[in-house]
């Protein structure tokens, strides 16, 4: 009980600290921008640890962060192997193919009103097939190794990127389009020089959402058949063995990898859409 109380006190204290910091000058600095989320994360971990210990939660339901940390440090080679299998081979490949296909489809749809009216509803439909249903089928089609995982990721990321790209391609101002018309610019030129740049904030919306979907997709697909490595494989088998510390170790890796992936895409976004008001400094 004392530990629970301690957890609450700690929580309130760090919350206050964070609010102070984020209102101070320090938060403008590079270090400050890292410190705030770090403190927040630390708070979550400490509160978690204290609560689990204080309430004597069984480690089979929820292990404390220290146990997870210990497991991570002793299982690095396994975690690395799983990471390569699931993230690099499955998620990344699928993300690239899926996002590429979605942007191309959006352009094709946009190009032809016929396709737009014909493909968009059908595309919506196909893309709305739930992964849990598709995954077994794709595993059946593409085999149990990473290819089927990539295929699942392709299907999963396709829709968000498509929807956002289509919205983005429609987001140019009338005058901007008129200018291109007076140049009698070809369709490709208008696309390349006006519509794609203007669509970038939307496309990156889709790409960012897709990064997290890609990882989930690759992991979930492994639940439906996989070789004996991979993050999804490890999670599902360790749940059965009640190796919850290992499950959380994998989840930690997934969260780190996913956040890093998202961060990289967000960084690229910053570079590409620097001109958009959402990226210029706000007051």
């Amino acid at each position, binding site marked *: 009980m004392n530990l629970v109380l301690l957890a609450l006190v700690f929580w309130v204290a760090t919350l206050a600290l*964070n609010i102070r*910091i*984020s*209102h101070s000058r320090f*938060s403008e600095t590079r270090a400050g*921008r890292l410190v*705030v*989320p770090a*403190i*927040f*994360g630390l708070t*979550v971990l400490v509160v978690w640890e204290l609560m689990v210990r204080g309430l004597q939660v069984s480690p089979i*339901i*929820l292990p404390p962060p220290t146990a997870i940390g210990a497991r991570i440090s002793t299982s690095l080679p396994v975690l690395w192997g799983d990471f390569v299998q699931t993230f690099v081979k499955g998620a990344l490949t699928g993300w690239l193919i899926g996002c590429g296909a979605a942007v191309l489809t959006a352009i094709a749809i946009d190009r032809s009103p*016929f*396709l737009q*009216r*014909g*493909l968009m*509803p*059908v595309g*919506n*439909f196909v*893309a*709305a*097939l*739930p992964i*849990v*249903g598709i995954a*077994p089928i794709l595993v*059946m*089609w593409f085999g149990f190794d990473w290819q089927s995982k990539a295929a699942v990721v392709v299907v999963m990321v396709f*829709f968000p990127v498509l*929807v*956002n790209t289509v*919205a983005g391609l429609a987001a140019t101002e009338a005058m901007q389009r008129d200018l291109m018309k007076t140049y009698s610019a070809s369709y490709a030129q208008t696309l390349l020089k006006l519509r794609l740049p203007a669509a970038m904030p*939307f496309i990156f*919306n889709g790409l960012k*959402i897709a990064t*997290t*979907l890609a*990882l*989930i997709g690759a*992991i*979930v697909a492994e*639940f439906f058949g996989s070789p004996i490595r991979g993050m*999804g494989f490890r*999670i599902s088998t360790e*749940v059965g063995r009640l190796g919850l510390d290992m*499950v959380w170790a994998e*989840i930690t890796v997934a969260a*780190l*990898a*996913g*956040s890093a*992936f998202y961060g990289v895409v967000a960084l690229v976004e910053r570079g590409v859409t620097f001109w*958009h*008001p*959402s990226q210029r400094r*706000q007051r």
Partner: protein
Amino acid sequence: MRSILPVLTVVAVIVALWYAAAVAMNATWVRDQAARAGTEVSFQELVPRTLAQDRPVLPAPHQVAKGLWDGWAGQAVTSRRSLVYHAWITLSATLVGFGIGTGLGILLAVGIIHNRAMDQSVMPWAIASQTIPILAIAPMIIVVMNSIGVSGLLPKAIISAYLSFFPVVVGMVTGLRSPDRMQLDLLSTYNASRSQTFWKLRLPASMPYLFASLKVGIAASLVGAIVGELPTGAVAGLGARLLQGSYYGQTIQIWAALFTAAIVAAALVGIVGAVQAVVLKRMGMAR
């Protein structure tokens, strides 16, 4: 109405490709069977056999259509074999989850753009939360909620909300930040309060982003509801149908459930799209 012809054309093309694929993918099995029986099959014999298997690798369109028809119209809607019944179960969790997820997503986005502490601390963790494989923690959510006595619709809705809040956050943060400097400066000269700036500028300006996100979010909600049905013992709902079909290798049942899910999703996305059209029109933004 102008879209009927294009849609039919696209559908026709897809169905044709589908039949071809069904023949190609199911042929191996027919040939293997023939080889095991020590006979040869000609192409004329092969085609009808590939399209009439009980457990095809890829069911033919008419098989799926029949599965759908049986599921939708062949039973009383209250029957456990009725897809309408299962679709309704999933849909109700989806809608509740979507409501919670969208509300939460918008709230978070509002917090993020208004509060530096939230901007800096919440976003990274919201991202991290989405990289946690939902299928891994869904059972934990169910177990935990069960042990505090909550079961039924709510746990599923929560998993559904978990998947749908994120697209909304990402889209809304960009959208709420999309007003340009002059638009903001104008309100600044009026000394508009933050809430006035929000309601009169940021929110209307974010609408195109919001609707793009809502479309993604509602599709994600449905996926969440289906995922949430798996660890509840897969007793009812489209997720249960999918899983059971999968256990027993009933491909046609899987496809029928899958199509039902997609029809529901497409309808939901369509509804969001219709609302979008109306709202943007009323805002004078539809040109």
